[in-house]
């Protein structure tokens, strides 16, 4: 029985399925009324700025068709910028302008885009073409992140980003997402980007996943993806972990980028982070989540909470090299709830 054997192996490895993620984590830890904070990138950004978390600088917001005229004014000081739907999903509807070209604009890939094209694009975003549920949306114009040259060898166009999954503020798993030719420069796994597991303790990359398979080389550059040391890893971890206080959501995926000049920045938050991160890390999420839940129960009994730094330290202690995902006895994890 293929199905049964696979089922049992997956269960033994603590692999989390969609049903479990929804029932035990998303529905349990994420309060509905807090969703707008993560679904709307403008709100996320405002919150982040308010608590002093690093985000790409916001140049302006367009809310109505009439506001489209303000576009030129918003971007007059910048040669490159990014246009995003505030409530878009999966990286859709995003235009990255790399340069200006004789009154027109040039995308990252060198395609020329006219001012009219941009106006039309903004208008479609406003009408809700890219928003979840198709309702009216806002347009966000922000700083264009320049990826750190470190990623040049293992990335094709686009901006690689780092996804860290947080359970109640504890990082449980991390992944570096690398755009490929197939993904069209987008860092979304289901569009063909590569996910590369990251050792939470050290920031060293592991093997990767591409379209549900395990891989070890980037398909476009053929460079190995593992063994790359991500710079300022502790900075990433702290930045990500502080997103729990920012959003109030217990189970989120935090997307971060590494800018050449500004270092780690928060791009966006996701209340329903995907599950392919497990393939990238060759590890199951369920076991790590259970461990954090036991730790939380023990803390609750002791009547104390942990700070961002303590949470990061806990995760780095326990979710380091992949070997540690195997069930182990841990005096700190307390008795099973």
């Amino acid at each position, binding site marked *: 029985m293929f*199905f049964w054997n696979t089922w049992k192996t997956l269960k033994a490895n603590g692999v989390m*399925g969609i*049903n479990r993620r929804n*029932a035990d984590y998303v529905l349990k830890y994420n309060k509905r009324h807090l969703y707008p904070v993560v679904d709307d990138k403008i709100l996320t950004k405002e919150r982040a700025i308010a608590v002093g978390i690093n985000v790409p600088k916001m140049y302006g917001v367009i809310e109505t068709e009439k506001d489209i005229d303000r576009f030129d004014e918003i971007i007059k000081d910048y040669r490159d910028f990014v246009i995003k739907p505030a409530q878009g999903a999966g990286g859709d509807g995003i235009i990255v302008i790399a340069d200006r070209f004789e009154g027109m604009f040039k995308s990252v890939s060198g395609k020329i885009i006219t001012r009219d094209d941009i106006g039309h694009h903004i*208008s479609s975003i406003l009408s809700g073409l890219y928003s979840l549920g198709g309702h009216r949306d806002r347009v966000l114009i922000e700083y264009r992140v320049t990826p750190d040259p470190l990623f040049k060898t293992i990335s094709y166009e686009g901006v690689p980003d780092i996804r860290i999954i947080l359970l109640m503020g504890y990082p449980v798993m991390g992944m570096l997402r690398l755009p490929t030719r197939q993904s069209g420069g987008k860092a979304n796994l289901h569009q063909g980007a590569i996910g590369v597991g990251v050792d939470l303790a050290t920031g060293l990359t592991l093997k990767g996943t591409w379209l549900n*398979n*395990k891989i070890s080389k980037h398909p476009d550059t053929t460079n190995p993806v593992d063994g790359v040391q991500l710079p300022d890893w502790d900075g990433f971890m702290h930045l990500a972990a502080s997103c729990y206080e920012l959003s109030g959501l217990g189970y989120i995926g935090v997307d971060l980028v590494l800018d050449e000049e500004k270092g780690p920045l928060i791009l966006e938050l996701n209340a329903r982070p995907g599950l392919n991160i497990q393939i990238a890390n060759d590890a*199951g999420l369920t076991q790590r989540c259970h461990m954090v839940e036991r730790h939380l129960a023990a803390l609750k009994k002791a009547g104390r909470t942990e700070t961002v730094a303590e949470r990061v330290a806990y995760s780095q202690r326990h979710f380091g090299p992949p070997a540690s995902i195997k069930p182990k006895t841990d005096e700190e994890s307390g008795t099973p709830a």
Partner: protein
Amino acid sequence: MQSINTHLKILIAILVSLGIAITAYQIYVMEIPLTEDETDDIWSLDAKLEFEATRGVPVKAQMFIPPLAQDYVSLNESFISNNYGVSINQQNGNRRVTWSARRSTGTQALYYRLVLTQRYSSEPPPASTPPLREPIVLEGAEQVAVNALINPIRQHSADIETFISEAISRVNDITDDNVKLLLGGDTSPIAKARVIDVLLAQARIPLELVHTVRLENLPNQEPELWLRSHNGENWLYFHPETGQQGIPDNRLVWWTGTQPLFDIDGGRRGQLTLTVTNSEMNALRLAEMTSNNASSQLLEYSLYGLPLHAQQVYRVMIMIPIGVLVILLLRNIIGIQTLGTFTPVLISLAFRETQVGWGIVLFTMITALGLSLRSYLEHLKLQMLPRLSIVLTFVVIIIAIISLFSHKLGIERALSVSLFPMVILTMTIERLSINWEERGGGHSFKVALGTLVAATLAHLLMTIPELAYFFFTFPATLLILVAFMLAMGRYRGYRLTELMRFKALTKQG
């Protein structure tokens, strides 16, 4: 979390038990048939009374007819007779019809028909205990013969039951001189019954002669005589000749007492033919008929109490949860991707109009054409609302053209497409095309296929007539459905497609 789980379990238990209890009540107490095709036996009894009327004399024919308070429910009772007045009167638990005419000549034929069924009958009222009676006073030799018979019977019996059996077996021993004397040469069952009556009267045991009819497909039946006595609790039936105790289920009491079946004044050569025929009838229609007759409110508070056109709508509506359940299973357990959650259900409803085969063909065709139009419109950079309106209009035009062509080609089936919900198609096209742009052609093809499969499956399930009947007749089963959906709401196992997706994680290293 634990308390929520307990709460959920209790809720599920309540819903399931409520659903089962209501349905069981409907099935076992109200006896609503489980399937639409379930039929019930219907017996029709035809009695034809023929006689020759005497010229110039008023005619009065009287005949016993079965009393209605029995294990059977009468569906219809009719008296057919030309120029005769009909009246029915009750006496001692019997019913008697009287046909009367001022004058008539020649051979007369009077008809009586009764249609019966056993289902949906109410419990017969408990019989009142007949009073103990005085012994019939006899004289001379007869008294001696009776005494000679009664004494051994007394010795061989313990109670009313054994006394009667003993008396019957004695009377049937026609070699016995005492019996011979009492019978007076007449060995018909009625004569034997009379002698048994005399014997029992000596012991003050009440006895009734019961004339019954067999409910079997038999022409020209003779009423069958049974004896019955009351032991203070219920009626005991005995066959007057064999002494067999207990009456078979298929006997219908026609009348009781010693009087003959019919009685004619002003006529002669009376002859009665009794024919019993059996037919079957749809159990549900039967229920409707009996509820009119028996004033039972059997179906009054079910969906059958609605006006007919409303029933038609509810027959479709009550199946929608089944369709939704199919989508739920396909999405959460199998893991098939569909376009939106309930679009497949809407499409499957649309298949009702077109039949599945045509529905799939038309759906595919219209969606493909619509998608190509949509991708062309994409170049024109139109806003959403105008674009949607154009696609919708285009869908209407395609449907009209398909109808026209198929009509010219003589395929009437495709004409029904005109009711194929256009808005559903338009939304399907729009969402598919967005899907196409965002996730690529392969993904949107997968989603479209998943939607079609889900819709077809849901449609096939929703149109099983037995299932539709079952849910319409026993709507409480929907509670069980809800309970199942609740349980599904906390299902955390893997989806079957996830087993494929995470296959890489089962390999070591």
